[in-house]
């Protein structure tokens, strides 16, 4: 049975005559984590705002739960769809009142509300005893962002949209925010749609990746995105050195963004790193294996400081005896990379 939550048809969004977003068709299923990737100005935030019902497309249709969304429905839909904005602010009140704000609007009784507020604070690693009565200005940047996230998590939303939730926070807060987001999906089957600079985390948790470029979705499905820096070699290839010293070689001319993408279907896995005609043979280990579209297995391999995703058939997984933690070789051609 289809679990389609959103369907966008022939969407266009213009700002001052400039087309910021143009999507012919996009379907988003419930209970999944979607990652939006792409350079600045690619339309990620515009898409998030339309999905959050904060903004309307200039033309086109948005369907939510099978119904065409009309402007007058948007305030009601925002009761089950919430978004953590890139520049999300706390309300000028105590932490507990910030977190309880949405519940009060929904008419929850004070006792249940207190329980839910404490639960949400704990979920983002803030002790209710220590933080509940703090004022909004008595928090660090990371703590404030966690309170902002708790204000959304407390609603147990059907959809949680996150625009760079960890852009300006410390490492501890980043880890706690990332964990809380995944927990929301696991506990409440919340659909998560997230934009994050932390591609390693993003690719490790996303069920689906939408790659945007110039306001269009240029790729849908898991994708391996590898940012620079890239060093030009005498051979004409470009090389990136990973944290463990291994090197990735790619061909072609770099784009302005200096980011490459490699389709998972271009990646082969082998148990031995014997000589290959492919330029890239990298050593890594399997971190995660999940079924994809029923007949395929998505395999996440950690290589140096990046994670690469490959699709294998079930037979191939059996032949290689693949399992999480297993050492494996990742093989792909230098020409498999596309400059974004």
């Amino acid at each position, binding site marked *: 049975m289809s679990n389609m939550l959103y369907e966008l048809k022939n969407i266009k969004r213009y700002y001052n005559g400039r087309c910021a977003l143009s999507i012919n068709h996009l379907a988003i299923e419930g209970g999944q984590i979607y990652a939006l990737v792409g350079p600045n100005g690619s339309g990620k935030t515009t898409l998030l705002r339309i999905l*959050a019902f*904060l903004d309307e497309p200039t033309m086109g249709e948005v369907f939510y739960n099978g119904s065409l969304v009309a402007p007058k429905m948007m*305030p009601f839909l*925002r*009761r089950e769809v*919430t*978004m*953590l*904005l890139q*520049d*999300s*602010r*706390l*309300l*000028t009140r105590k932490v507990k009142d910030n977190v309880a*704000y*949405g519940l009060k*609007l*929904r008419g929850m009784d004070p006792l249940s509300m207190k329980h839910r507020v404490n639960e949400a604070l704990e979920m983002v690693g803030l002790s209710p005893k220590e933080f509940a009565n703090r004022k*909004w*200005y008595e928090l660090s940047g990371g703590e404030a962002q966690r309170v*902002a996230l708790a*204000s*959304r998590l407390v*609603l147990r939303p059907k959809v949680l949209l996150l625009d760079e939730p960890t852009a300006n926070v410390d490492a501890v807060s980043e880890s706690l925010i990332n964990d809380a987001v995944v927990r929301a999906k696991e506990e409440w089957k919340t659909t998560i749609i997230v934009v994050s600079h932390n591609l390693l985390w993003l690719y490790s948790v996303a069920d689906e990746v939408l790659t945007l470029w110039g306001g269009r979705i240029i790729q849908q499905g898991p994708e391996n995105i590898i940012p620079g820096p890239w060093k030009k070699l005498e051979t004409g290839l470009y090389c990136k050195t990973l944290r463990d010293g291994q090197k990735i070689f790619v061909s072609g001319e770099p784009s302005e963004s200096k980011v490459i993408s490699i389709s998972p279907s271009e990646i082969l896995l082998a148990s031995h790193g014997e000589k290959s005609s492919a330029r890239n043979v990298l050593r890594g280990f399997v971190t995660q294996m999940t079924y994809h579209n029923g007949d395929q297995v998505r395999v996440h391999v950690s290589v140096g400081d990046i994670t690469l995703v490959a699709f294998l058939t079930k037979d191939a997984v059996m032949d290689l005896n693949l399992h999480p933690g297993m050492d494996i070789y990742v093989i792909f051609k230098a020409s498999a990379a596309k400059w974004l």
Partner: protein
Amino acid sequence: MDYILAGIQEAFVLLLSGDEEVYTAVFATLKVSSMSIFFTLVIGLPTGFLLGYTNFPGKNFVRSVVDALLALPTVVVGLWVYAFISSRGPLGNLNLLFTLPGVAIGEVVLALPIVIALSAQAIEELDLSVKDTLLTLGAAGRKLALDILWEGRYGMLMAAVTAYGRIISEVGVATMLGGNIKWRTRTITTAMAFETNKGQFAMGMALGFILLLIAFIVNGTLSFAKRRRQSR
């Protein structure tokens, strides 16, 4: 230098002895400024909020006019209000000229653009991020508007305090519309100007100290509002 020191010394004597002339001017000032700020806020805050919160054709023009009125010279305000409330003016039968309510009308005209412009700006600045934050949490309609108003309270306080500072320290309107009548419409600023011209330096000093005290309180409140607003 001696006459300054002597003036300061005498000023303290006047203040501590409860000099009637000094305190009559102080009370007249407090009375007229309270009246003025009350009506300024009653009219200005809702207008400023609506100007900042709503969008309508010609909004930019209205904002420009309000911003331009911020630079209104006090004597121009005094002149125009005088024209209206003098015996030959359209409001002449109300006998407001050379009364504290008459002065208050002028001060309302002077302070209104400040409150409208600053509160509209406070709401507009909030609107960018706070409105979206409230929307994402599920607020809508009247609740959304009221919560934006609440979130803008420090900006509104700044607008009110700035306007009060302008009212309490102005001299042009108070002189032209109040007439500086002793025991009746003489305020701190008009008394200071008048007494200093008369050579009553100590009286001017004493009133100056009180004005400074009020200014410190006003500025302290302003700093508090600024800090709270910036700590968002």
